[in-house]
């Protein structure tokens, strides 16, 4: 029982970062109806810039700002090159273009820092907190806190500002939004930038809590973000958060009970089974 609760705690804290990645993915998917494969590599680009900067100074806030700025820069570049030209065309072209830029961003990052592993300044120097027999890392709590804060801020923007109304109109029906005078291209670009900012912050929190970066960060973020988005039913923000937390829980429990190799297997199996069964909340009707 103690193991079960400890695993659940670990799963939820890992799930918090998946939830953040899923939220970023879902925001982009919502306005563009396209999966942005280079979301993870853009996060990796920002994290690599921050790592490179950390050789000269260690201020965590400044490093976080660099990670966010780098990711937003890469994200806007991706939007302009891969998504703005394909807003009306087939989705395949936009996805393949974003994959091409994935390769480009990864090479940029590895040219900047060619080694396989780099240390990153720790988010928190102390040890984990103890609650009776259980322990929780402070870093994980910070990520959880960031996830909650992001959701509240996102909610506020979406439901209480004019820009939020425009975003929701575009998500609902891009054509109708355009006809009612909303500049869909500008909304897409801003949402892309906002999602990238969330991604940059998430990337910073992840590498600072692991205290290292590797070139796997790009692919890892894309896969986890897409999984969280899909498990949450594709296209709803609360769904993406639930999907991310669920992914964390599944991974933690299957790793404990079935062994490390089943950690990813069960998550993919569940996604496959859900897609095959097509429960009503999954919204499997909309193409792309």
């Amino acid at each position, binding site marked *: 029982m103690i193991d079960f609760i400890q695993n659940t705690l670990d799963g939820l804290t890992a799930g918090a970062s998946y939830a953040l990645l899923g939220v970023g993915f879902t925001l982009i998917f919502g306005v563009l109806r396209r999966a942005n494969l280079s979301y993870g590599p853009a996060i990796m680009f920002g994290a690599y810039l921050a790592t490179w900067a950390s050789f000269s100074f260690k201020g965590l806030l400044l490093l976080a700002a660099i990670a966010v700025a780098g990711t937003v820069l890469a994200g806007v570049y991706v939007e302009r090159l891969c998504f703005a030209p394909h807003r009306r065309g087939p989705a395949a072209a936009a996805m393949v273009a974003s994959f091409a830029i994935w390769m480009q961003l990864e090479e940029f990052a590895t040219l900047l820092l060619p080694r396989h592993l780099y240390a990153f300044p720790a988010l928190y120097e102390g040890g984990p907190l103890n609650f009776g027999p259980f322990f929780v890392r402070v870093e994980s709590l910070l990520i959880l806190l960031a996830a909650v804060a992001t959701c509240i801020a996102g909610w506020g923007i979406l439901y209480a500002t004019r820009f939020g109304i425009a975003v929701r109109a575009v998500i609902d029906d891009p054509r109708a939004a355009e006809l009612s005078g909303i500049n869909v291209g500008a909304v897409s670009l801003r949402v892309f930038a906002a999602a990238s900012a969330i991604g940059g912050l998430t990337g910073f929190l992840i590498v600072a809590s692991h205290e290292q970066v590797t070139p796997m960060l790009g692919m890892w973020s894309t896969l986890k973000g897409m999984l969280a988005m899909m498990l949450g039913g594709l296209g709803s923000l609360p769904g993406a958060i639930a999907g991310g937390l669920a992914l964390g829980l599944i991974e933690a429990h299957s790793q404990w009970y079935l062994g490390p190799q089943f950690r*990813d*297997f069960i998550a993919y199996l569940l996604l496959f089974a859900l897609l*095959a069964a097509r429960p009503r909340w999954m919204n499997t009707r909309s193409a792309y």
Partner: protein
Amino acid sequence: MDEYAIGVLTSIGLLSFVAASAYLLLTAGELSFGQQGFFGVGAYSGGIATAMLGLPLPVGILMAMLFGAAAAALVGLSTLRLRGLHFAMATLAAAEMLRILFELFHWQMEVGGETVGPDGTQGFRGIRWVFERGVEPLGFLFIVYGMLAFMVLCFVFLERSKLGATLRALGEDPQLAGMLGIDVLRLKLAVVAAAGALAALGGALFAHHNTYIEPRNFDIMLGVHSLAYALIGGLGTVFGPLLGVALDLGVLEGTRFFQGYRMIVFGGLVALLLVWRPRGLLDERFVHWLRTRR
């Protein structure tokens, strides 16, 4: 020809099979992130057939295609009604499950005083049928390109047949195709299985070319690359995906001019190319123009 050129040409031929399988699905309107899984099924079953069961390579290739088609049909059966990103993610999940299963797959036996067979993450060594028969690299190149030529011939016939037109109709608008009396689900299942067999054929040849395979060979990078090859080369003809592979491997690997900056140059070019031609270099319009001009 020097050894290096033969190596690059062989790789182009091997990847052309996966690219063609992604192309086949794209013409039927489906996007798969999972062709690498069936490529892996082909590599493992082809390797097991020749290195462990002592069967000749042609039988091994047939077995690989059979297993690849069966695996793809199984995935296809459960995902037939999915479209777009849902189908892509379902195929990705299936391929990742296959990759993890390869990591868990241990089955070794003594052959000629040596232990061979899949050994989980350690991979599968000693698939040496081609070398034991004294086939030179050039000879193997001819085998690969012979099979590729046969595949292209089949595609050319397919695309001139009624079935080919039906396939395009399915890709354009499945709802309309259904209303025209096309059995959409059955046709889609057949396409998914055929694409699985094609990817598996490439995988079996890949295993015999490399003599060593490991689960990592079959990760998502291979699948998305094959998708990109098909889309860069063009969706108008089967020569499209072949051109895509040749462009990536041939021009950039062959010249070695952009050493270290290869993906920066190539990735940017691909994104720009897709702005200009969203359905690739040899797209339907261009192919139609080629066929009808006098």
